[in-house]
């Protein structure tokens, strides 16, 4: 029996139901942000800095303003409130973690591609011409492009403050130095990971207009409609005079968690009183939007001869780029998860995020976890090799379990089945593949990961959902989710249908509109199913309870004996008495009993004690899992062929099996790209991989089918015991692939991506030091 055939206690939950949005997407009928056009729309373009570090001496917009067809040219002085605090759909302030958000560059530019001026014109061509007519005089500055350099006391100051350090955190548990002194094996390495781009299919896009009630309305591709507050603050408008609508997104992956086009559109529409549209080209998108943080990570790991981890010391330096954005949060995630899903009595983590004149960095699937996972999972294999243990055997001795403490002292409360995921992932690789030629080497690797789902407990996160019956038995859900392509709205429909005893087709979900749908928070942080799923579940259950109570009264039975399914109320054990859903709905309506409910779900909340010293519970919960990979390395060219990929995760409970599988497959592919290929290259702050012919992501021809294994512990905090899977599915994929490469060639590379050139260089150097390489040989896996 496969997992999919297992009998389930649910009617619809866990089934592989086609998503309600699937067919439209296959037919190309789904409307994305750029597909909407208002009558009389003007076209916007953004003038971006040609320098990574410069002072702005002057900006002359007069020639551009005089051009026929140009309706507005805006610079920093035209922005009512050009500087605010970076917030991301928060309803609770968490001081110490928020940085400067500057709409348009003022006096100083901090990264190449920073927005300097905005234009709205009758045609895109006129707008482009107007950009070239804007005369900006820059005074180039030396800049600083390496976070380690930027930490030095005499380094160039990226911002206006007297330090480039955005934030620093530490974790202290036990005494690492004493543990290192006593340990049998100590392994020390420095790891580096590059900038990454999200490469969503849909670049940033939106249209803004002023509606008939004078409300500034923005329809944009965003993961956070609650940026409406930030937009209102920037324009100094009341919050209830700005509305943000998010249609279906062509992907987000964290890149649309920051404000992208919204503020520019709002400023131009407010100035011109005309609808204004702005869609980035791919080049502009790669140049100007956030990147995944590059890290320098120094790891020192110690174990006893019998294979027990005793200490881990980590120093993390993160390149925040030109502005803080989400860097403080991302670094906090890295700090908490720096030691991975392992029980380690002595932990010391020091982490710093540092401004440079590189493109700013912010959220990217995994949010600080993939960087450290690459480091700690490389360390695990390196320590195992020193101990003469297989990677699996060593990990099995050290995995965290329910009740065990993280480095912060927080004891895990939910199900932790990392052992089972690791055993099953490795087993699913099956028989080893034989090399196809004498030049090919085969290797296998595993990597386990832990990744939070739900936002930081400091944020007092909440979500709201409205569920209501219509009189004909159909259902409306109103929930402010942003559907970024992960099946977010479809899962909400499925949960609602499960509880209310109707089919998924009976449920319509209105989503992503700050004026019409109750606010549900961000579609980020692997939180939407957890938070809005729970809010929807709560609302649906309230509606169900009201109807069941009424039906019980009508059937003269106690409510706990009423079964509600297939649009019928029955008395359990009594075949003769039943009521149709419509009969009960009509009775409720007649008696003034609400057919709807608006529910709020609140996540666990904690106060920030001392932000620099990371202690206790930081996240609501974590998802655990393991990736396994088999690769072939061509020793002549250094090219890697990924032969097999497996993702095994405790998902708690799959809500929609197809969506969960899709997340596992996509996340695994994303991680494999991080391992082997993806690399935003910057040359003194200038992005030199600004298009998809130079920023390479894996294609369908580059990866095998992903084998997905879902374990359903039911032990998550989401609806029906679900855990989040969106980000966790990606985190441990990269180190599984790089561990397989290390197994194949007998040399561990400590820098991503593990490119053909880096592999071949290592092999050439390895030939020269063959004895040394043999001593670091990675043993057989199991």
């Amino acid at each position: 029996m496969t997992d999919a055939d297992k009998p389930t206690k649910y009617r619809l939950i866990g089934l592989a139901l086609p998503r309600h949005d699937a067919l439209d997407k296959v037919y190309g009928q789904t409307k994305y942000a750029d597909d909407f056009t208002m009558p009389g729309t003007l076209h916007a373009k953004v003038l971006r800095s040609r320098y990574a570090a410069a002072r702005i001496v002057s900006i002359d917009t007069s020639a551009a303003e005089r051009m026929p067809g140009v309706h507005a040219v805006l610079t920093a002085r035209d922005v009512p409130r050009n500087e605010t605090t970076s917030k991301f759909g928060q309803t609770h302030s968490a001081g110490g973690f928020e940085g400067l958000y500057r709409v348009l560059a003022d006096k100083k530019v901090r990264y190449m591609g920073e927005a300097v001026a905005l234009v709205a014109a009758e045609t895109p061509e006129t707008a482009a011409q107007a950009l070239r007519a804007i005369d900006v005089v820059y005074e180039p500055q030396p800049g600083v492009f390496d976070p380690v350099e930027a930490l030095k006391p005499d380094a160039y100051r990226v911002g206006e403050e007297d330090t480039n350090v955005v934030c620093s955190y530490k974790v202290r548990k036990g005494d690492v130095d004493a543990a290192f002194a006593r340990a049998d094996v100590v392994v020390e390495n420095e790891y580096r990971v590059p900038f990454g781009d999200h490469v969503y299919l849909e670049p940033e896009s939106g249209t803004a207009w002023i509606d008939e009630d004078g409300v500034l309305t923005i329809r944009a591709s965003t993961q956070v409609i609650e940026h409406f507050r930030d937009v209102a603050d920037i324009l100094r408008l009341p919050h209830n005079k700005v509305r943000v609508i998010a249609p279906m997104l062509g992907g987000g992956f964290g890149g649309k968690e920051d404000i992208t086009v919204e503020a520019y559109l709002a400023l131009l529409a407010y100035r011109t009183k005309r609808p204004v549209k702005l869609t980035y080209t791919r080049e502009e998108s790669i140049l100007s939007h956030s990147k995944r943080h590059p890290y320098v990570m120094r790891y020192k790991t110690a174990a006893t001869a019998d294979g027990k981890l005793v200490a881990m010391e980590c120093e993390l330096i993160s390149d925040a780029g030109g502005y803080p954005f989400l860097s403080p949060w991302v670094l906090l995630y890295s700090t908490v998860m720096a030691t991975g899903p392992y029980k380690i009595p002595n932990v010391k983590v020091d982490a710093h995020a540092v401004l440079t004149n590189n493109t700013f960095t912010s959220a990217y699937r995994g949010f600080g976890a993939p960087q450290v996972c690459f480091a700690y999972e490389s360390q695990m294999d390196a320590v195992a090799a020193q101990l003469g243990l297989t990677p699996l055997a060593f990990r099995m001795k050290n995995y965290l379990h329910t009740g065990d403490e993280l480095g912060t002292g927080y004891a895990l409360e939910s199900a932790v089945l990392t052992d089972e995921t690791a055993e099953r992932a490795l087993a699913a690789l099956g028989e080893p593949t034989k090399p196809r030629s004498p030049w090919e080497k085969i290797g296998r690797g595993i990597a386990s990961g832990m990744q939070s789902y739900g936002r930081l407990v400091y944020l007092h996160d909440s979500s709201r959902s409205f569920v209501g019956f219509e009189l004909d038995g159909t259902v409306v859900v109103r929930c402010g989710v942003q559907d970024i392509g992960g099946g977010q709205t479809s899962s909400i429909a499925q949960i609602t249908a499960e509880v209310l005893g109707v089919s998924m087709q009976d449920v319509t979900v209105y989503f992503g509109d700050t004026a019409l749908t109750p606010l549900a928070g961000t579609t980020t942080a692997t939180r939407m199913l957890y938070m809005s799923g729970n809010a929807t579940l709560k609302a649906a259950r309230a509606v169900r309870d009201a109807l069941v109570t009424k039906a019980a009264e009508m059937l003269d039975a106690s409510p706990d004996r009423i079964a509600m399914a297939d649009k019928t109320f029955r008395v359990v054990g009594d075949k003769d008495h039943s009521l149709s859903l419509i009969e009960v709905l009509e009775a409720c309506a007649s008696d003034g009993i609400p057919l709807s409910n608006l529910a709020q779900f609140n996540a666990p909340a904690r106060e920030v004690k001392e932000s620099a010293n990371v202690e206790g519970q930081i996240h609501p919960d974590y998802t655990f899992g393991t990736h396994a990979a088999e690769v072939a390395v061509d020793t002549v060219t250094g090219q890697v062929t990924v032969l097999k990929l497996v993702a095994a995760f405790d998902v708690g409970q799959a809500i929609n099996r197809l969506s969960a599988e899709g997340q596992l497959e996509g996340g695994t592919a994303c991680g494999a790209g991080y391992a082997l290929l993806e690399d935003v290259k910057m040359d003194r702050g200038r992005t030199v991989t600004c298009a998809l012919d130079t920023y390479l992501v894996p294609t369908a021809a580059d990866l095998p089918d992903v084998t997905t294994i879902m374990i359903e512990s039911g032990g998550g905090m989401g609806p029906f015991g679900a855990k989040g899977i969106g980000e966790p599915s990606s985190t441990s994929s990269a180190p599984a692939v790089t561990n397989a490469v290390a197994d194949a060639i007998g040399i561990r590379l400590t820098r991503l991506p593990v490119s053909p050139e880096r592999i071949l260089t290592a092999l050439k150097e390895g030939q020269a030091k063959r004895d040394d390489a043999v001593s670091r040989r990675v043993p057989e896996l199991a």
Partner: protein
Amino acid sequence: MSLQSYVRPRGLDDALAALADPRTRPLIIAGGTDVIPAMRKMRLGEPQAAGDDDDRPGVVVDLSQLDELRGIGEKDGMLLIGAATTMGAIARHELVKDRAPALAAAAASVGSPLVRNRATVGGNLATASPSADTAPALLAANAVLGLASARQGRREVSITDFFVGYRRTLLQPGEIVAYILLPLSRGLVRGRFEKVGLRNADAISMVCVAVEMELDGRVCREARIGLGAVAAVPVRAFAVEAALKDREIDEAVARECAKLVHEHISPIDDLRASARYRSWVAEAVVARMIIDMACKARS
């Protein structure tokens, strides 16, 4: 507006006539896979900036529908390929796969299915990118290119003379590549192509190599080796070929001969790979291909 017109001639003579007047600043398009990205960079849709000399193209001449330039056939014991034949058509063609396998493999390695269904072999040569994947295969096949223009009429040139510098060919203004002729491999002559890219689709070569070898048992009677992405132009490795001639091939011989590839290559650092990597891989891949082909011939 810079771009005045688009023409799609019905016959080759009309096409050559449309290209004859340089004052119209003609831009040839066939598959468009090089031209369209270039046009975007040239901002052809925008008005000329004040005071700038407009040297951007004025007329686009579309050769993609000219029957005279499309198709694959046999002529006088040679393989004849129209220059506007797509990479996809070449890669799929049974005669090419059987009798010019290096070219078939090279065409199959270009871009992705979407690109291969538009990109043409003539365009691949005329653009003259150092990494043009069909160039090494045609160099190894000793292909002849048929050129045509209104002014000079028809002429045939060897592909070894065609590339004269970085992205420069001996095509004169108004002249096009009309067809490609290559000897059908026969008997013991075999061809191979290998592309070293960063991924398996939509990747530009870091190194690409084509080898044609006539083997008599383990003895190499003749070899021709073409390489791409390792010099300003696609190159022949004449020194390696000469060293292999009439030698009995084993692994040591192959490695020794392959070292001579450095006489012909002068790779550079770029985003995809360093010069050092390209040097290593060019030599090692040439050696491996020779060894593989000789082993295959033995067995």
